[in-house]
């Protein structure tokens, strides 16, 4: 194996130090006098001994291998990889937010509770809903919480239902959440315009349906323009309308899910509201509900009594707690900062620019790549690499070749209803120059497919590592390195 960067343990040199501790201001005592014998360890912990510049260089070096939004364009469809403003980090590091303890009495953390309460209010106003829980730590956990509330709602009314409808263009998390919530998922077809097939929905909708989970705009980046008819059909059989809020970045200040008839909506703070994405790091998937679902929200709910904020556990119909403490608080501080910095008009401009950017890219690329759904798109659109595949180059190869242009690849092979799909979401934070650079890269690659296909098939050529063994990583995942055995 070719090692690009040793681990920090490999850099260790005995006796080297990276931190200077202040002088003791109390008399020094041997450890044996301070702790009982059973609390003393026999061996020293295996920690790397490195200097400060070695640590800094090591991690800066590692970060340069990665592609991230601070480094380059990241049009990963459905993920809304917008720039994360640094002011969010300033707020999150304020000691009053960063150093509170989750078990501190409510009276001593009024500022933190107020921020959570106000963030919930802001999300309600943006979405047209009545109440919010901030607890879920990710979009998928939000989905599960939302479905559990819908289940509790039906159970309370004495009609236990068995299935949830999901369009064939849905995110894979939707059927997974449905299964976890104890329901069976039933697929609804899309029509030739890429929207929910109303006749198929009508056929599938009956008294056994607990909910329809809909992403609007959908994963093709198309607004479900029949939403009013969909709402009538779903509510007509007593089912609930759930919105997967992954694509909320197209709606801010323009249209509200609550007004469309959605009863439950999850938000992805790490998408729409500019908090950091993934890397295993914390996300946040708050769930907003209409008043009739409110009694089932997870506890505690943050309430305001006059000038005081408190945690309310008195919700007998609650689905219970779904996350430790109150969710990922630091992420909430960032999202709150973003919303307050943008303001109502700023948020509307976010969506308008996200939509304009996506349509600009789409029109510039449609002659060269197949565009299965030609109508105006919202914040993202889906191309097909069918034409290139006929010339012997797969969408996967095109995605890999893009890396050589300093661009993260779009989402590929999703949604499943488009063969050789390339799902592109530029977001609002890209300039015309960076969009033009991406267009140039895509057009160059399309030319290479005709003139030098091997160059595309063997890409990437300039990244720290070439093609990785994805199948091997899936089959034999091994991320542990033992100090005593080397690699």
């Amino acid at each position: 194996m070719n090692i690009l960067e040793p681990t920090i343990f490999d850099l260790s040199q005995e006796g080297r130090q990276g931190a200077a501790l202040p002088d003791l201001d109390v008399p020094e005592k041997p450890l044996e006098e301070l702790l009982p014998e059973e609390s003393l360890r026999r061996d020293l912990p295996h920690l790397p001994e490195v200097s400060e510049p070695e640590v800094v260089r090591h991690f800066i070096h590692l970060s340069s291998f990665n592609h991230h939004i601070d480094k380059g364009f990241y049009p990963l469809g459905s993920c809304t990889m917008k720039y994360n403003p640094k002011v969010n980090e300033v707020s999150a590091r304020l000691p009053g937010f960063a150093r509170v303890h989750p078990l501190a009495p409510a009276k001593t953390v009024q500022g933190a509770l107020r921020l959570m309460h106000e963030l919930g209010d802001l999300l309600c106003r943006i979405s047209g809903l009545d109440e919010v829980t901030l607890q879920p730590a990710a979009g998928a956990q939000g989905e599960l919480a939302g479905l559990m509330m819908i289940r509790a709602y039906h159970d309370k009314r004495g009609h236990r239902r068995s299935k949830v409808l999901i369009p064939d263009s849905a995110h894979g998390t939707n059927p997974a959440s449905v299964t976890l919530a104890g329901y069976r998922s039933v697929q609804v077809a899309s029509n030739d315009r890429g929207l929910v097939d109303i006749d198929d929905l009508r056929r599938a909708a009956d008294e056994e349906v607990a909910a329809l989970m809909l992403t609007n705009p959908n994963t093709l980046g198309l607004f479900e323009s029949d939403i009013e008819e969909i709402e009538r059909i779903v509510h007509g059989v007593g089912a609930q309308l759930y919105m997967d809020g992954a694509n909320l970045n197209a709606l801010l200040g323009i249209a509200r899910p609550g007004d469309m008839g959605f009863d439950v909506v999850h938000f992805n703070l790490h998408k729409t509201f500019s908090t950091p994405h993934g890397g295993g790091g914390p996300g946040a998937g708050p769930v907003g509900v209409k008043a009739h679902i409110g009694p089932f929200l997870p506890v505690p709910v943050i309430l305001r009594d006059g000038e005081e904020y408190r945690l309310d556990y008195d919700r007998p119909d609650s689905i219970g707690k779904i996350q430790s403490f109150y969710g990922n608080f630091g992420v909430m501080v960032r999202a709150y900062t973003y919303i307050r910095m943008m303001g109502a008009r700023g948020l509307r401009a976010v969506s308008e620019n996200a939509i304009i950017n996506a349509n600009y890219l789409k029109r510039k690329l449609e002659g060269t790549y197949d565009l299965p759904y030609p109508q105006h798109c919202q914040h993202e659109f889906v191309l097909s690499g069918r034409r290139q595949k006929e010339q012997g180059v797969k969408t996967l190869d095109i995605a890999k070749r893009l890396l050589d242009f300093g661009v993260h690849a779009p989402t590929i092979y999703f949604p499943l209803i488009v063969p050789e799909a390339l799902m592109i979401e530029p977001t609002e934070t890209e300039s015309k120059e960076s969009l033009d650079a991406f267009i140039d890269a895509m057009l160059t690659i399309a030319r290479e497919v005709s003139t030098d296909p091997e160059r595309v098939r063997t890409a990437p050529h300039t990244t720290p590592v070439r093609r990785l063994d994805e199948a091997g990583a899936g089959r034999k995942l091994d991320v542990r390195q033992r100090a005593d055995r080397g690699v």
Partner: protein
Amino acid sequence: MIPDGLKYTKTHEWVRVDGTEVTCGITDHAQSELGDVVFVELPEKGRVIKREEAFGTIESVKAVSDLYAPVGGTVSDTNRLLGETPETINKDPYGDGWLVKISISGQGELEHLMSAEEYGKLIGEG
């Protein structure tokens, strides 16, 4: 690559008929569309399955897909090789990459299957 002696489904499974026992797998076209196969989940031996029932799943680096029974009957054997080396499906889809053997309940089960020529037309390689 569509061998002549086999029967096919529109969901890209192939069937080799040997008396009342048939061997099934996925076609070369299907494995090429899926990309590198990572896991395969197959039914238990002895399970009774209906034609077109989803009887297993196949996961590739691209997606997880259902496997559909090309014929109805009883599962008489499954390819244990695939547990350790699912990539055999990519390397040899019509040979060592077979999935299951099914004892069919009657010759009627075979009526709905396509010929190599018909399948070739379906995927545009006729």
